[in-house]
């Protein structure tokens, strides 16, 4: 058996976030080198602030400025920083209880090594030179010799000119994707321009592409079956809009997106129908794949010229 395919898959998207009043004040404050917490019903100050009281569930809106100095309440050494983390060299993740706050703020501490970090040590904010209204406006924390706050906070109201109301929160996930044994066989056969599915030993249905198991019977499949190359258009739609996710494909609209039951397969796969005016495509049209050099999949399916399939022969496949 040939090796099972695998390849990297990166999922990445710049999600946007509307901040609401509290996060807006907090992030705008960071831009102005002001750190704001919020006062809860029982008189504690939460940093970073939240919109709702974790004890009473009441809406809380009283913002309180705290100092840019504080005490490490716990920490963990990060030996190998990864993409997007606050520092490129090894650092400590720390929870810092800022002077005036009752809770810990998670951030990075720039320290020479784990021996230089301890719970209870005093630290202060190192501000980023360029600040935009983001948690990264605090570049990191650094060791600080003083016991008291450097300066008393001035009691900022949380009102700012030109407040930040939304942020972009990019997300990225890196996977190694493998299609598994059955689909690897299917994909490898496509190189020879053959469509190879698998037959369920129980219901005898042929799945193309194969999944390695029959979703109806719940049993493993192994028997390979070559299907096609001809097939029948079971149903279709005419796509008249160029969507963002097809923009990189060299396809002009309108085009026909069809469900094609390859001869010998028990469910339809999806493909583009061309080689015929879009408004002449019909259910029952007989088609065959058209390959282009170097492509993994057929570029499209075109009419074979055979008579149309009778509706009753493919009705169950729609």
């Amino acid at each position, binding site marked *: 058996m040939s090796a099972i*395919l*695998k390849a*990297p*898959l990166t*999922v990445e*998207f710049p*999600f*946007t976030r*509307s*901040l*609401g009043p509290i*996060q807006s004040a907090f992030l705008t404050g960071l831009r102005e080198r002001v750190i704001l917490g919020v006062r809860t019903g029982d008189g504690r100050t939460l940093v970073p602030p*939240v*919109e*709702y*009281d*974790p*004890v*009473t*569930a009441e*809406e809380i809106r009283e913002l309180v400025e705290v100092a840019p100095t504080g005490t490490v309440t716990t920490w963990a050494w990060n030996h190998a920083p990864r993409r997007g983390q606050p520092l490129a060299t090894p650092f400590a993740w720390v929870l810092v209880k800022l002077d005036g706050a009752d809770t810990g703020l998670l951030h990075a501490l720039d320290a020479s090594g784990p021996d230089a970090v301890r719970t209870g040590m005093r630290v202060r904010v190192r501000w980023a030179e360029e600040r935009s209204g983001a948690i990264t406006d605090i570049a990191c924390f650094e060791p600080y010799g003083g016991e008291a706050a450097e300066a008393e906070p001035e009691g900022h109201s949380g009102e700012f000119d030109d407040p930040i*109301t*939304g942020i972009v*929160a990019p*997300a990225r996930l890196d996977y190694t*994707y493998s*299609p598994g044994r059955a689909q690897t066989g299917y994909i490898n056969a496509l190189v020879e321009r053959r469509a190879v599915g698998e037959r*369920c030993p129980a*219901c005898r*249905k*042929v799945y193309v592409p194969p999944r390695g198991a029959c979703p*109806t019977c719940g049993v493993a499949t192994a028997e390979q079956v070559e299907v096609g190359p001809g097939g029948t258009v*079971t*149903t*279709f*739609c*005419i*796509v*008249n*809009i160029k*969507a*963002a*996710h*097809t923009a990189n*494909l060299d*396809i002009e609209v*309108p085009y026909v*997106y*069809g*469900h094609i039951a390859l001869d010998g397969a*028990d*469910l339809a796969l*999806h493909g*583009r129908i061309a080689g015929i005016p879009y408004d002449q495509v019909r*259910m029952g049209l007989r088609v065959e794949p058209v390959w282009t050099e170097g492509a*993994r*999949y057929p570029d499209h399916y075109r009419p074979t010229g055979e008579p149309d399939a009778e*509706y009753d022969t493919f*009705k169950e496949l*729609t």
Partner: protein
Amino acid sequence: MSKEPVAVVGIGQTKHVAARRDVSIAGLVREAAQRALADAELTWADIEAVVIGKAPDFFEGVMMPELYLADALGAVGKPMMRVHTAGSVGGSTALVAASLVAARVHGTVLTLAFEKQSESNAMWGLSLPIPFQQPLLAGAGGFFAPHVRAYMRRSGAPDTVGSLVAYKNRRNALKNPYAHLHEHDITLEKVQASPMLWDPIRYSETCPSSDGAVAMVLTDRAGAARAPRSAAWMHGGAMRSEPTLFAGKDSVSPRAGRDCAADVYRQAGITDPRREIDAVEMYVPFSWYEPMWLENLGFAAEGEGWKLTESGVTELDGDLPVDMSGGVLSTNPIGASGMIRFAEAALQVRGQAGEHQVEGARRVLGHAYGGGSQFFSMWLVGAEPPTS
């Protein structure tokens, strides 16, 4: 021991719009939850558990809403869980919450669903670039349009039926202050002249992209007895699922949908849904799904659903009104859309639906589906407590 009857005593929605840039996600869900509490005249302390639902994680990049939103929903120190069944999730979420009451695990439960589509991109979330796979050639509309064509072929329905549904639902939405689309100048001619996107689906026959949340307070008999307004009572509820694609799948009328409806009717003692059910809040993201689901849900024989639509039976003043609120076609915060159907069904039997109230609605079905027509969730609510 029989199940505890489940009552809906509080309902809250946000005004659904294209983008709620003034609130965080926490602020959005809070708004719906507080309106539901106010309707029930309850406080956070009265809630024993919270059940939340939203659409797939990639839609907004919020992987654990139950963690992020616990304080906004007063769930600190209480059980809180998240339900996930694609587009049907709002319905499934309500049913999980209802089961906690029916099983007497909790007396009063807050259930809630939301989506902030403006902070996300559902189309991107549905078309990740999986290695070795052929790129998708069409979006959600392109996925469903071939099934609509298959329905038209099977039933022989005239081409105009889809536009009738869209015209009706958009007019119904004008009577619902919470609906997203309020197209005051809508005409049937405008619907029929709107661009064909995924032939046979026109632009005006597709759902919008909305920001919104909905919440309900579910409670037991004792809770209902204390409630300030009349309750909606659950008479039946069920979920069913099946694979997106499998040999023998009926994509026009999926078996999971038929079985789910049959289960709900059995629980509720319904033998003739067309006669015994007064109205339906149906999950119709593309207009043609109204006649398709009318058949799938047993309101019409196979191939006959479009005749109910065409003859005006499903109009607000018809014999079986469908989507009195304007439906998904007028409001679609995806994760919330299923629960909005359930909540609107409850509003009807409580007599609280305002301008889009169906006179004398006693038994109303709430319906949701999701994924590639593979997840179904439904409930039937009544104005009276269940007798058995």
